[in-house]
């Protein structure tokens, strides 16, 4: 089959545009995340906002009220200034911009994948560069769904970190020119098996990131609780803050006011994102493993042979099965389950990179030799 190098170059331009868009989105979400204190909270962020409000001195709240009362609405003989349009704070603007460039980058990546397929005249997921691109596209698609649904832009920031890293590695170290495939990959199973693997891995990445955020948030809340308890013991909480007036050291504010983690979505929201992503991706992943076994029966003479790739896929499958069970077991919910989800994703990445590039086996098609 003839390959079209010119179209391949156009596809790579699309890939670079996507990477640029993702980097821009990462920066935008990063700025939004860094400046998110004081911005309009999502429903999920309201919890942490309330916690912070509690920790602030009471005067701040009173000030706002006083100011509102003193506001001269319209005095006689004075031209009332037109009310300034309510402008969303800087951070929220960046969040919105991040969402837009992320969407544009995603479109560019879809374009890149389609043109790559046209250039090669086959399914555009036949080597590690193409697989990484598909994986990132799936992760971005998954996070776009989450972002448009929940508006928790901090998730965008955290998802874009691994996506940008993977895209960068894929576009430089793993990149290969458009080429036809070795006979071992001439099969419609390539279409089915690798598509299912890449899509499920991408969505599992969203789950893994949500679980990492869950663990960060859980740690933050533990510290918050610990300091609150400490403050309760020392009695400083009982002294009316309005009397002191000074911005003295108040223990919870040291965490709540300084930690960016306060703007993460609530634990319940993060747990739900991780769980939802997993129950979408896990059956697809299971299907991918079964399809892989059916392909192995056609290609290698047995449906399962404990090839390193197969073994590692099995390990990941078992870990995700453990995650789903842990979420339904008393004493294993919450942080423990989140750790298992993170472990599952680490095993998936391990399977993708270490097994393909370091361990030799039947799946050594990386095309990097």
């Amino acid at each position, binding site marked *: 089959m003839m390959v079209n190098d010119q179209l391949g170059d156009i596809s790579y331009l699309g890939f670079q545009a996507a990477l640029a868009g993702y980097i821009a989105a990462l920066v935008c979400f990063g700025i939004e995340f860094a400046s998110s204190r004081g911005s309009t909270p999502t429903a999920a962020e309201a919890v942490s906002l309330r916690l912070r409000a509690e920790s602030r001195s009471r005067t701040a709240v009173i000030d706002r009220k006083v100011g509102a009362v003193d506001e001269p609405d319209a005095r006689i003989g004075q031209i009332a200034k037109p009310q300034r349009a309510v402008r969303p704070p800087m951070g929220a603007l960046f969040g919105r911009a991040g969402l837009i460039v992320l969407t544009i980058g995603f479109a560019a990546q879809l374009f890149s994948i389609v043109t790559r397929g046209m250039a090669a005249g086959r399914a555009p997921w036949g080597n590690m560069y193409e697989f990484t691109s598909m994986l990132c596209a799936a992760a971005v698609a998954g996070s776009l769904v989450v972002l448009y649904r929940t508006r928790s832009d901090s998730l965008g920031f955290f998802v874009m970190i691994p996506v940008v890293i993977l895209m960068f590695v894929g576009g430089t170290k793993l990149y290969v020119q458009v080429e036809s495939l070795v006979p071992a990959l001439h099969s419609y199973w390539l279409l089915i098996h690798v598509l299912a693997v890449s899509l499920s891995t991408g969505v599992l990445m969203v789950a893994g990131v949500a679980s990492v955020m869950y663990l960060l948030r859980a740690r933050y809340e533990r510290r918050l609780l610990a300091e609150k308890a400490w403050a309760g013991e020392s009695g400083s909480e009982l002294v009316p803050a309005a009397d002191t007036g000074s911005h003295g050291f108040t223990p919870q504010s040291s965490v709540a006011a300084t930690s960016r983690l306060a703007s993460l979505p609530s634990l319940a929201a993060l747990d739900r994102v991780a769980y939802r992503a997993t129950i979408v991706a896990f059956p697809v992943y299971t299907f991918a493993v079964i399809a892989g076994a059916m392909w192995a029966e056609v290609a290698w003479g047995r449906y399962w*042979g404990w090839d390193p790739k197969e073994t590692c896929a099995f390990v990941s499958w078992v870990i995700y099965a453990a995650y789903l069970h842990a979420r339904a077991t008393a004493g294993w919910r919450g942080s423990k389950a989140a750790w298992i989800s993170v472990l599952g994703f680490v095993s998936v990445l391990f399977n993708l990179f270490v097994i393909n590039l370091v361990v030799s086996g039947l799946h050594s098609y990386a095309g990097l030799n």
Partner: protein
Amino acid sequence: MVTRDATHLSGGLPADGGDSGSPVEPPFRQGRLGRAVAFLRNTWRQLTSMRTALVLLFLLALASLPGALLPQWSLNTSKTAQYIVDHGSWGLLLNRLGFFQVFGSPWYAAIYLLLFASLIGCLLPRTWDFVGQIRMKPVNTPRNLARLPHHASVGAVGSLDAIADRTTAGLRHWRFERRTETGGVITISAEKGFLREVGNLVFHFSLLGLLVAIAIGKLFGFEGSLIINAGDGAGSAFCSVSPVAYDNFRPGLLVDGTDLDPFCVDVDKFKASYTETGQASSFVAAIRYQSGAQLNSDNWSSTNLEVNDPLRIQGQRLYLLGHGYSPVFTVTYPGGQTQTGTAPFQPQDANFTSQGTVKFTDPPGYVGAQVRTHQLAIVGLFAPSAMIHGGIMTSTFPAAQTPGVAVQVYRGNLGMETGAAQSIFDIDTDQVANGQLVKLNRANLAPGESMTLDDGTRIAFTGYKEWVSLQTSYDPAQGWALVFAVSLLVGLMSSLIIKRRRVWFRIGIDQSAAQRAGAAADPRPVGGDGRVSGLTRTVASEDRVQVEVGGLARTDQAGYGDEFSKLVALVHDGTPS
């Protein structure tokens, strides 16, 4: 038994009586048998708890890892042997502990057998519970529906029965039960999503089925591999009459090789195509085969065997797994007799620089002990597109464009009678070391070129053949494995997607509305028109109905909200909106 899993044993009494007994009472002593039974029961409970299952799952994942990271005997014998040699006593220790045969090791078997025992111990009571649940009617309506996660209170107009009929008509695909409480209040309890538990059970039973199918495959299946030169003619056909016919045969534990369902196969032609850069683009082997009634006749079927496209004969599958080159040498002995020999050479790189040995074990014109001093071995490299650089021959392209060999000739006793197995790709170097095999000429030859040994024997490189490696596989249970894999997937999906949820309706006369309406109507007629107030009173006393709705999702509350509001709307229009 300090730890006990809440999900599985919640509500269960401590097995040994626990600490409920007061210290004054004499401690209750169980008999020896009772203690043994209690111990077994506790062990069983511990094993079947979800906590243990989780730990076993982790152990399974952990124990599988060396199978991926260390070389395995079953995958690559030479690499494993080399690894053990390279790692000295550590290698030997790991080998003894089964780390190079993880999936056949006792500790791995122990983990998955315990896991499956735990699974069965969990599944059986769950299945039994589930059967009980299906037979039960939906539970009574709770007294206070406002305390449920989903709650709504709506007014409606009409008779209680009509509203209840309307609501139940909309509850298609729900199991529901209509009851009447005191005071004529009608309640409807409905539940849905039993398929979740069905899917859950199907998933786990499919795992068991899959394990059995795999085990049957390991017991009764076999694999055999062979190498055939393409285009050798009819006499070279391979027939799978016994395991000996194969170059390598890996039988299942209960296969003795007597009942193989024989078939014959011969390779007429092999064609490998390459791109300009030397990347393979296709492999096709044109083969002839016969099986069943065709055997012992001249009736052959023809087909093309390709990668990813095996031939299926009577439950056995024939695969094209690899290919390579067999250089052909013609030896002309001093007596004038000629002999032609060929042997498959093993590819060493992507361009098919191949290494091997052609052995001439019965030189013509020699008898008795002389045979063992005149055996010949031609050892060396074959390159389909030969290039000599720095005295070393390598191949620059995988297709045979300018074939060449770089060989070393040995003469003497090849040591074939020692009884020890010999590699077909190499000679027994011990024979060289002890002087029985003498190193002679060395030469680089193109097709047609020859070299002459000291005794006048002429060795000509006459050409090459292409060999293909084929594999026969037989697994009687793989169809079942597929069936269980599919049911596993279906079960998994329904157990993850379907949600168990309940909804209750309590349909009764709205007392407060009746009072309010009565209070509003009695003292002063609304708008001075008696007809309006009279109407109000009629509606209030007979038809103003209050419907309390409560909803509960068993597993994941999120996502039930939308459906719940649709259920609430049933009260008004009786059709799901």
